[in-house]
């Protein structure tokens, strides 16, 4: 039975009066202790929490951290090596009260994380652990006393079988409780680490650096002198201000190219409703930014109109100070200053320590060092460490602790070393950390959940599953079409004629959810990763290889579990009559390649001998089987054409195609996969997948109108198209952007017969103008907003690639629940509620964005490494043809089709000289001035010569690499001639832009490896290539999907604003 106690609280009201409040407090005899040593697990209700977590049984002691330890050293407790941690509720509440929501959520996630061996003990609700606070006792003393008392109870509860170590920072507590109970030790945190984890070096270092930074902070606050920044306004005032419209809330976005000066605040929904602001708000200078960092949710106050400033349109680099004011500024825009920060979005930052010379110039304060983050948008961070010299040549991870108003820069502490500067592995690790991607190898606990499939112990279909699933092995001809060399086959197809003459089309997707149980370790890991990450030269799988390449993969000739969608179609009109969803067993008969399938479709049967499935058959049965397969492929293509035509009528955008292959080139390194002329089978497969996704979306939405995961693509803002329209006008084309259909049509028409690149650039501009497609929970937005603009479908989701996307796994679970709901069996407990799903969607969208960024950054890294070794003056490859695609006040943006590089080329150099071109087109730097027009820029020298660059002009550029110690290297372009580049083989390059990213990656990788393994050349490089090929061996549908994603990718204009 519950016991009732009363707590008396004294609160201060808004009017300053003290208010006496009596709150009830109920105690119960048993609270889950979540220890495997518990004598009566049944009465304790152990393992009945939301995740059923228990402490592991192989620990030597339990550790109980005091409230102060939890507050200050949470990131050390975060180490997975530290096991058997019992967090007391008192400590958690202290964190919640005093450290804010961010820290508390971190703690909550830690407790929820099944991989981490820690539990919460609700001591304040346990009848013998609860101690009422005594009169005159300070909060701190009471908390320590409660925690100690609970620790002692826990020790007795486990029948003295497990020693307990209470870790505290309070010296008095150590004195007082140290020897009170046998088996319950009270020691300080430092002591604890020294005694129990002497080998855990990372934790020691982290502890050291936290201690040091805290000491510094204390010293500082004592000698607080002149303030650098105004204080933040208290939270209540901010909230009231936002409500009344005095302040505006938004997310801070720092301009990468003018990180010191410019930042923008993007408004958030509700707050902008009544004010008539449409554009972003400019925050000019560090002072106005008031200690907020890129990504923070801030509150802004607008400045009076007389102080508004314009944004800069010039290309970056010349660091702003010496420019004549107002010269290159655009129209004044709303300008404001930050008055408070609602939510800090600090993450781990990769930084570089200054080189020795710089350290010395920083002078007396050698203990405190200013380090430069890799990301331009993050201000320098002050670190106190003695290791500065040792860490000079490394990329290092740091965390920000605080930013006082008295300090110019934020204070941080050192966390760990990533790798050497310029080293491939180190740089890749940098990219991963900067995108918050963590890809540790799968742990043992996770692998234990995996099915076994070895030659001795092959994986088999279980008889129980055989009964529950629909067996398609005998009845259906199932086959897959993928790029050659593909290992993870998510999707297969089937088509057959039914007895009544109608057709049955089937899409069968790998049944990943059968192997990945909800809330299992592997599920949690996959959820955290959310997607498979593809970098330029490697990939990080979402699921272990045993699933992705073996048991889940729908390979040819073996039995596999699948989730199928099957439609019954009318024999002539192909109208959908019926649809069936369910779990099946299939055996894929053929694992075809695109090229082979296309040949079969075209009636070219010479490829038959290349298809392994046909090899061992005798002539007659081969013929019969071949005919059957060819019929199926033909029928499928026919059906796909019909569906496609129907979708086209609604205005589906045709952004895939040759043009986007080039786009793909820039960011993704899969060029050799893309045929020059896309085959029709590609479209066929893609269409079937879109159909399946669409129907699944409809089904889950109908069954779970408020908690289904769908994907939407909001229509783009018309104003974003203005640049596209202007550019097209320069070439005499008219682009109609009013609807997706009009846009698609006018893009098709905008084709310059002399210069195919124009159309490609226009299309890539169109893609950039569009917003991202997003996952969302149907409960969180109105039904009109579900629409998918690019595909012209009212509902869409991702269902067909569960091996490499977590969203698909969720959709599979939803679909299964929807089916069982039809059968009146409710399996709802494994589904997410709307709120959780919304949270999850945000996470997946976030991770997808991180995946795209990391891919882009890694490609840029490889490009730079490729050009780094070349001497730009002599190497022929560094000189190339480029097309101008945008005009800025002091330069132009150039696209180089041969390498797929986009970059800025300056027309005015650092000394203020402008470019001038002689009659033969070769350029020199001379004094003069620049004049910018709508679609051209003219450079006039003092001598009166002038040269004009128009949009879409071809110029010759030299590519070089600008190296940077603290940041990533960047590609630099320099116009060396205003004429197109005319080497004899230019034509050849234009036809097949085949110095491709893949070759480039291989070359860089090889040189890196050669450098590293100079002594052991024997290492089988080809094997590695094999692996990389695997990276690219994804189904073409995936690829087309990615193109679509790409179309929606936030390709933030990479150079200049």
């Amino acid at each position, binding site marked *: 039975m*519950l016991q*009732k106690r*009363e707590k008396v609280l004294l609160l201060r*009201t808004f009017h300053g*009066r003290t*208010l*006496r*409040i*009596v*709150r*009830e*407090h*109920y*105690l*119960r005899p048993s609270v*889950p202790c979540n220890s495997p040593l518990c004598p009566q697990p049944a009465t304790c209700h152990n393992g009945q*929490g*939301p995740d059923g977590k228990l402490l592991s049984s192989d620990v030597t002691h339990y550790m109980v951290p005091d409230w102060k330890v939890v507050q200050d050293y949470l990131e050390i407790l975060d180490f997975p090596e530290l096991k058997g941690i019992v967090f007391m509720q008192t400590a958690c509440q202290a964190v*919640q*009260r*005093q450290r*804010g*929501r961010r820290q*508390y959520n971190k703690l*909550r996630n830690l*407790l*929820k994380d099944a991989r981490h061996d820690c539990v*919460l003990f*609700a001591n*304040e*609700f346990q009848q013998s652990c609860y101690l009422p606070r005594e009169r005159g006792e300070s909060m701190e003393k009471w908390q320590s006393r409660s925690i100690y008392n609970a620790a002692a109870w826990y020790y007795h509860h486990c029948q003295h079988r497990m020693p307990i170590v209470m870790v505290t920072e309070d010296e008095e507590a150590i004195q007082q409780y140290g020897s009170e109970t046998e088996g319950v030790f009270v020691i300080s945190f430092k002591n604890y680490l020294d005694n129990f984890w002497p080998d855990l070096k990372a934790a020691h270092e982290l502890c050291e650096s936290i201690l040091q930074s805290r000491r510094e902070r204390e010293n500082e606050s004592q000698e607080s002198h002149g303030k650098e920044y105004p204080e933040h306004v208290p939270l209540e005032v901010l909230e009231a201000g936002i409500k009344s419209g005095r302040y505006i809330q938004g997310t801070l976005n720092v301009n990468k190219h003018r990180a010191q000066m410019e930042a923008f605040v993007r408004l958030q929904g509700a707050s902008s409703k009544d004010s008539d602001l449409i554009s972003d708000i400019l925050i000019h200078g560090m002072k106005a930014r008031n200690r907020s960092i890129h990504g923070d949710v801030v509150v802004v106050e607008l400045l009076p109109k007389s102080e508004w400033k314009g944004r800069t349109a010039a290309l970056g680099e010349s660091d702003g100070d010496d420019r004549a004011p107002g010269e290159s500024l655009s129209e004044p825009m709303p300008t404001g200053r930050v008055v408070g920060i609602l939510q800090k979005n600090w993450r781990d930052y990769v930084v570089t320590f200054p080189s020795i010379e710089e350290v010395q110039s920083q002078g007396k304060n050698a203990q405190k060092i200013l380090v430069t983050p890799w990301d331009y948008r993050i201000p320098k961070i002050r670190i106190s460490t003695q290791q500065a010299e040792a860490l000079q040549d490394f990329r290092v991870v740091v965390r920000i602790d605080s930013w006082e108003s008295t300090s110019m820069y934020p204070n941080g502490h050192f966390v760990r070393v990533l790798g050497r500067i310029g080293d491939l592995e180190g740089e890749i690790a940098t990219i991963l950390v900067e995108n918050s991607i963590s890809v540790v190898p799968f742990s043992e606990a996770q692998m234990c959940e995996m099915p076994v499939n070895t030659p001795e112990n092959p994986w088999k279909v279980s008889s129980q599953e055989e009964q529950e699933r629909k067996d398609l092995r005998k009845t259906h001809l199932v086959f897959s079409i993928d790029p050659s060399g593909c290992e993870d086959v998510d999707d297969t197809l089937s088509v057959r004629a039914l007895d009544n003459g109608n057709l049955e089309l089937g899409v069968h997707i790998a049944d990943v959810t059968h192997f990945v149980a909800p809330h299992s370790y592997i599920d949690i890991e996959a959820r955290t990763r959310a997607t498979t990450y593809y970098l330029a030269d490697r990939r990080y799988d979402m699921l272990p290889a045993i699933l992705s390449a073996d048991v889940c993969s729908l390979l040819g000739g073996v039995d596999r579990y699948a989730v199928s969608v099957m439609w019954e179609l009318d024999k002539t009109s192909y109208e959908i009559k019926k649809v069936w969803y369910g779990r099946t067993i299939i055996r894929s008969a053929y694992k075809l390649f695109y090229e082979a399938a296309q040949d079969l479709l075209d009636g070219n049967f010479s490829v038959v001998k290349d298809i392994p499935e046909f090899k061992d058959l005798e002539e007659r049965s081969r013929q019969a089987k071949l005919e059957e397969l060819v019929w199926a492929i033909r029928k499928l293509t026919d059906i796909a054409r019909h569906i496609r035509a129907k979708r086209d009528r609604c205005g589906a955008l045709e952004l895939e195609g040759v043009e986007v292959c080039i786009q793909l080139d820039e960011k993704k390194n899969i060029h050799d996969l893309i045929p020059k002329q896309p085959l029709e089978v590609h479209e066929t497969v893609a269409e079937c997948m879109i159909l399946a996704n669409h129907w699944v979306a409809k089904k889950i939405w109908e069954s779970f109108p*408020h908690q289904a995961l769908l994907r939407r693509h909001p229509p783009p803002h018309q104003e974003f198209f203005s640049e596209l329209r202007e550019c097209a006008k320069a070439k005499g084309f008219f682009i109609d952007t009013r609807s997706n259909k009009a846009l698609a049509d006018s893009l098709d028409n905008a084709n310059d017969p002399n210069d195919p690149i124009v159309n490609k650039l226009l299309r890539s501009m169109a893609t950039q103008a569009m917003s991202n497609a997003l996952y969302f929970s149907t409960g969180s937005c109105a039904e009109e907003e579900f629409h998918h603009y690019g595909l012209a479908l009212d509902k869409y989701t991702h269902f067909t690639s569960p091996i490499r996307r977590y969203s698909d796994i969720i959709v599979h679970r939803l679909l299964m629940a929807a089916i069982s709901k039809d059968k009146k069996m409710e399996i709802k407990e494994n589904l997410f*509620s709307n*709120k*959780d799903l919304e949270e999850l969607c945000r996470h997946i969208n976030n991770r997808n964005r991180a995946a795209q960024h990391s891919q882009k950054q890694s490609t840029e890294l490889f490009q730079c490494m490729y050009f780094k070794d070349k001497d730009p003056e002599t190497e022929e490859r560094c000189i190339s043809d480029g097309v101008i695609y945008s005009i800025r006040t002091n330069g132009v943006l150039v696209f180089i089709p041969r390498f797929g590089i986009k970059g800025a080329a300056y027309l005015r150099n650092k000394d203020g000289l402008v470019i001038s071109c002689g009659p033969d087109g070769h350029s020199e730097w001379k004094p003069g001035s620049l004049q910018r027009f709508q679609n051209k820029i003219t450079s006039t020298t003092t001598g009166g010569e002038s040269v004009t660059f128009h949009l879409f002009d071809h110029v010759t550029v030299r590519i070089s690499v600008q190296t940077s110690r603290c940041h990533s290297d960047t590609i630099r372009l320099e116009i060396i001639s205003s004429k197109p580049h005319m080497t004899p083989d230019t034509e050849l390059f234009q036809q097949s832009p085949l110095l491709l990213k893949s070759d480039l990656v291989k070359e860089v990788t090889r040189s890196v490896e050669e450098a590293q393994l100079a002594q052991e050349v024997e290492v089988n490089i080809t094997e590695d290539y094999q692996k990389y090929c695997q990276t690219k061996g994804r189904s073409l549908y995936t690829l087309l999907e990615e193109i679509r994603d790409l179309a929606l990718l936030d390709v933030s204009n990479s150079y200049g604003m």
Partner: protein
Amino acid sequence: MAGLELLSDQGYRVDGRRAGELRKIQARMGVFAQADGSAYIEQGNTKALAVVYGPHEIRGSRARALPDRALVNCQYSSATFSTGERKRRPHGDRKSCEMGLQLRQTFEAAILTQLHPRSQIDIYVQVLQADGGTYAACVNAATLAVLDAGIPMRDFVCACSAGFVDGTALADLSHVEEATGGPQLALALLPASGQIALLEMDARLHEDHLEQVLEAAARASRDVHTVLDRVVRQHVQEASVLLGD
């Protein structure tokens, strides 16, 4: 400072209860001798006193008399000292009028009014301390008082509130939980038949969740019934012991 966490990940509420658990209920019947029926109830820190007079002749204007059933007259008031800040609450303000009407509806549904035509039953309820769920406490107190007065009823009327936080329905909200502004539903139930005497909610709640919240409130009301039933039996036993002497 982070906002109050109404329901922790471990499933505890602010005061240590789990989602479906009630606050401690203590009640006594027959606290005043001069009234026909009276009762006092404590639900957690919410304390209410109910007094019943009747059935008796119509007082005041005879025109109010109903030819076929008794008139149920309810009055609600809350003490000036019932909340943390002392505040004068004049009679006849909107809140207490509304509460009076709700009580009247509840008891017209439960009392067998047709047995006493042209007569009047008065129910007076006063809240001495308010800590959430005042309506429920009033109904429960009044039920006991009506029983004490010996007025025939169809069944006990048991009331309880329920709220909705993070996808979970919470039974019997305390003041802290009410004050955060989530939806709150008040239910008065005739437990034996499962009929609803009154259902009231004035916040927005999605239709999908209604069933869940209603279910939680109904279960809590049945739990209240068990407690009240025990109180009545004990009272009757005490009374009969006294009579037997």
